[in-house]
Structures are given as C-alpha cells and as structure tokens.
C-alpha cells in the first residue's frame, strides 16, 4: 500500500510539475464547454439538462485521454527509469495501479473543474441532479476505460507518438463497436449473436445508460472489468517488454 501511494503521489505530482497538466485542463475545459455552447447550442435548447454537455465526452476523451496516458510507460522505457522502478522493492501490481490511478485521478480533477456547467443549469432552471451525478460517474468511468486502453498501448512502444496513435485507434474501435453504422456492418459479416456480443463491448452503449441517469450494475461491472482486463494485459506486455 505504501509503495502504491508513493508511486501514485510521484506520478500525480509529475503531471502538475510540467505544463502538461495545465495545457490539458485548459484544452479540456475549452473543448467541453465550447462544444456544449456553440455546437449543441445549449441556450437555444431551453432545457435545464447537461445532456448536450456529456454527449461530447466520448469524442473528446478519444483524443485527450491518450494524450494524458501515452507517456505513462513509454517514457519510463525510453528514459530507462523502468529499470530503476523495477529494481526497487515494488511489485508489478503496485506500479501498474499507482500509475493508472494517478492518471485517472488527474482526469477526474479535470472533470471536476467543469462544475460551473452544473451551476449554470442550476441557475437557469431546475435540472435533475440524479442524472447529472450519474452522467459524471459515467464520464469518469469512460475516461478510466480509455485510460486503461492507453496504458496498454503505452507499454507497447517506447515512442510516445506511436503509443498515442495506437491508443486513439484502439479507443475509437472500442467506442464505435456500438454505434449504428458499425453494428450494421458487423451484422453483414457475422451472425447476429456474434455481432451483438461484439457490440456489447462498446464503451458507447455502456456510457449511454449513465447519460439517461441509470446507474446499472452491469455498466459498472463492464467498465471495472475492462479496466482490470486491460491492466492485466498491460502487466503481461510490460513483463515481456520492460528490458528491451
């Protein structure tokens, strides 16, 4: 536990000691609110809901989460600090969890900074706070899902750009699995049961439940197990690649 905390603290601190954190938070806030007001036309909807705000999250996370997570392991491998880390009395699990949770917390902090949006709808009308809470939870879990995919690809390459591109592609695939056009395509090649199983893995469908205000245990289990699975795969990749 102490090692996990030490790694988490170090990792989180390193975000805020470099300009990365500030650039990311500013871009994230500009993009989320910008999309809400200028593309979704928040005011013209004349409804006290944050739906036009949350609907953008999957698409923004698609690029922003890989940007945050790409360095997690590729930088360690490139600078050789991975050799230092794994010759300290630290287990693979502690290192993986520490780094992942730190990046996830960082994304959470950025997400929390969108609170003026909540104040805005509260001022303009009387929104359903249950839906808003569920949507925030869903958004946070979605970010975690994307981050776990990014972690895995970050371990695969020493080059951060390659990690970033691969992560974006993988995240895009995970998102699109459940989107109409894509499921139609799957239906053409696979039997229905298979294509439905595949699209059941979509981040998109599982996020939609939260947006409607439903905290479904199946969606919770889905995101948690995706994260665990990706981190387990991450451990395997890292074990093989760490000394290269």
């Amino acid at each position, binding site marked *: 536990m102490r*090692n996990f905390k030490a790694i988490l603290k170090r990792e989180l601190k*390193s975000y805020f000691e470099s300009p990365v954190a500030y650039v990311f938070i500013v871009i994230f806030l500009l993009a989320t609110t910008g999309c809400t007001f200028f593309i979704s036309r928040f005011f013209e909807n004349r409804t006290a809901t944050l739906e036009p705000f949350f609907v953008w999250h999957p698409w923004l996370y698609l690029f922003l989460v890989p940007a945050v997570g790409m360095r997690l392991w590729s930088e360690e491998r490139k*600078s*050789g*600090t991975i050799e230092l880390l794994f010759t300290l009395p630290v287990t693979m699990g502690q290192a993986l969890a520490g780094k992942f949770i730190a990046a996830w917390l960082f994304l959470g902090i950025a997400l929390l900074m969108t609170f003026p949006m909540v104040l805005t709808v509260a001022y303009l009308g009387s929104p359903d706070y249950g839906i808003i809470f569920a949507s925030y939870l869903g958004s946070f879990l979605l970010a975690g899902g994307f981050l776990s995919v990014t972690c895995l690809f970050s371990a695969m390459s020493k080059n951060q750009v390659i990690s970033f591109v691969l992560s974006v592609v993988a995240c895009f695939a995970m998102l699109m699995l459940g989107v109409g056009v894509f499921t139609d395509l799957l239906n053409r090649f696979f039997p229905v049961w298979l294509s439905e199983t595949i699209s059941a893995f979509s981040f998109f469908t599982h996020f939609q439940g939260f947006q409607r205000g439903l905290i479904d245990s199946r969606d919770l289990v889905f995101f948690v197990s995706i994260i665990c699975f990706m981190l387990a795969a991450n451990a395997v990749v890292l074990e093989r690649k760490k000394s290269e």
Partner: protein
Amino acid sequence: MIAVQSLSRHFGSIKAVDDISFSVNKGEILGFLGPNGAGKSTTMKMITTFLAPTSGTATVDGFDILEQPLEVRSRIGYLPESSPSYKDMNVFDFLMFAAEVRGFDGDERLKKVKDIMETCNLKEVAYQQIDTLSKGYRQRVGFAQAFLHDPDYLILDEPTDGLDPNQKQEVRNLIKRMGQEKCIILSTHILEEVEAVCTRAIIIGEGKIVADGSPEELRSKSQLHGAITLDVAGANLESAIAELEKVQGVDRVEKLIAQDSQKDNNDKKDEDNELARLRIFPMCGKSIAHDVANFVHSKKWVVDGFTVEKGDLNEVFYNLTKGGAKQ
C-alpha cells in the same frame, strides 16, 4: 553472499550470458570486465531481478532472485548503466520517493535523504531539476539512490562512466570505503579502475567467464609478468644480449630501443656509449630479478633503469577476450 548458479540469458539465438557461475562474499569488490556486449550488464540485470534468466538462478543473501525478488531488491543498491532517474523531479523529491519506496517514513525518511545528500555532495543542487544537472551530478544522484538504504549488496553498472578524472577518483574512494563491509559488484571496461579498486576481477567474453582472480593473478597471466626492463649504457649491445640469455632462468632478451646517447654530436659514433633498453623475459614462472641484477653488476654496466614488470592487464584482457575468440 551473492551466489550465481549457471545463469544464462539468450536473446533469440544470441547467448548474451552463457552458463555463468561465481560467488561474491562480503568485503569483496568484484570487478566485471569485458568488452562492450560481453554480457556484463545483462548479468547485473538478472542479479537485480530486472531481467528474467533463460536458465539458472542466483541468490542474494540466501534469497532466490526468481522466488523472492522483492527480498532481493530490498537488499541491493543498484546503479543502472548511465544512471537513469526521473528527470522532471528535483533531487530532493526524487530521493524522498526512493526512500519512501525503500520503506522509510516520517523523520527517518527525511534524515536518510539529508544524510545521503551530504555523503554524495548533493546539497547545493537539492532543489534543482535532475534534467538540468551535469553528468557528474546525475551520476551522484544515481549513487545516492543506490546507497540510501545502506544496503549490504551494491551492484554498480559502469559507475565512473562519463565522469572527469577527479570525480572518478572520488567515486573510487567511495567504493573502496564501502567495500570494507559490503559486497560490491561493479562493471567497467577501464582496466586501471579494476587495479585501483577491486579485490577480485572476472573477465567476461561472449557471455562466458574467461578469467577469475585477483588483479595480480590476472596480471600474472600476462607474458610480461616477471620480465625485466633494463636501460643500460656503455655496453656492447649484441654481446650483452647474448650473455644475458645465458643467465639462469632467462628465456629470451628483446631489444626495445637502441640509440646513440649523444645524438647532438652524431658525427662520431661511439660504440661504447650506446644506450639501450632491453626486455628480459623469464622462463615460465621463474623469478630472475636477482640473477640479472648480479650479472649486470658483475659487468659494471651503467644502469639507467631497472624495472620488474608486473604484467599488463590490457594485454591479458585483449588475449582473453579477442585472441580467444579468434581461435
């Protein structure tokens, strides 16, 4: 004690480390010698549990590197090659992190970090980002991290690489001081370093141990070991060589340089004033210094220099790692 038992590591078809066994006790400073790519770093990475061996194992203080890697890691201080560290952190934060992971809390942690910064002369750069430090300071940060928890076992991969001569000397003194009660393995390709610091040296070539012994023992494998270099003036060279070769125990005599002592007035050649450097090689294992000295004395030659060669580690190194490969 560090005991390595038939450790191997293959990368594809390349045998980076091929069935190496040795053991090191406390109070020993073992120098790992070998050309680049001989398998020094790979062996060290396996002992520090970073790299899994293809076969074989090692124990550190009785703990197996495969079965109890965390126990091994907590007993070792390791300086990886080119001493990597988190470059976006400052020195103090980095050492505090290392101390925390090493299991120190609160005041003890702060004390450990302060002490080690004192020992490694890092105080003046404590709050500087590691990125901005010079190579020498960065190396010291690596040392500080490795010595922080006062481990009984130190594994140092090219500890003096990239340092200036003064810093090298500093580091060597530090290692020597620590070596009295610790068990240290260091790798290097600087031969003087082995002679200056190590109590024992292992030469590795192509993943195998080709020699193991004290620096003196290794040097004695040199052809030059026990040979005498003699600067004489005033002798008739050709006959001198012939006579020297008859001295008991002498194998052969080589003429290294021969020149006229009075080069400035080289118009007239004075045979009697010839200055020569001779190298007298003993027969295998014989000590000839005494006999040669007596002989020279009896001839009343003017001797400018008389050196008993200890042997050249460079030559041994070359023959074992390169000469051996050719055969």
